[in-house]
């Protein structure tokens, strides 16, 4: 079972792309800065959108390791 620290690190790795995407979006729309709460929610949603990408690559990698 993963420890709390490992879980936190995995969560960090999964959430970071969402924050990257939101920051890039904000830099392209500088006249419409979101609140910190809105930015966090947007990042979480975008990170969730990327979960299938992680799963697809993880699944492909595990399939390759098993063969």
């Amino acid at each position, binding site marked *: 079972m993963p420890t709390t620290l490992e879980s936190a690190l995995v969560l960090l790795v999964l959430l970071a*792309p969402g924050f990257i*995407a939101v920051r*890039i*979006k904000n830099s*392209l*729309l500088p006249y*419409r800065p979101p609140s910190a709460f809105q930015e966090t929610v947007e990042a979480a949603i*975008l990170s969730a959108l990327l979960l299938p990408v992680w799963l697809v690559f993880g699944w492909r*990698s595990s399939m390759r390791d098993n063969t």
Partner: protein
Amino acid sequence: MIASTTLAPLDIWTLFPVAGVIALIYVVISPLLGVLYALIQANPPYRAATSELVRGRLGVHAHPEVRDRAFNRDVQPWVRIVLKGGSAIQGIVRFAGLSLAGRQPLLVPLPGVPESLIRLDSDGQLLDDLTSRAEGVWIEIGAEVLFVEIFG
């Protein structure tokens, strides 16, 4: 993914595919997602369809706000924005943001026409002619604005 069940050190080459996936998501997919999100937020594809649907159901006189009705036209009007204290700014509306979050008309001068973008004092006298100096004046319609006169 990589799973080590022994205490033997991992072969460094096995880490490359994982690093590649992380780099792909962090460096390529995330920025693309941000750009896509910015495009969607700047030009909401659902806005036109929703507007058509709502206006079709409620009639052509239904707009989200009076401001939409006033500025949603091809020929932008000449306006005088009167501020608290009586001073005013007068010019042609170039853009009028239709976002509900902010009312931000951009006033511009009429090309070749002097005193077409001006500031007026509380007596209606010319205070400052911005025509030759400024490309436009961006105003946030808020508590400092008493009313907007529209001259069509």
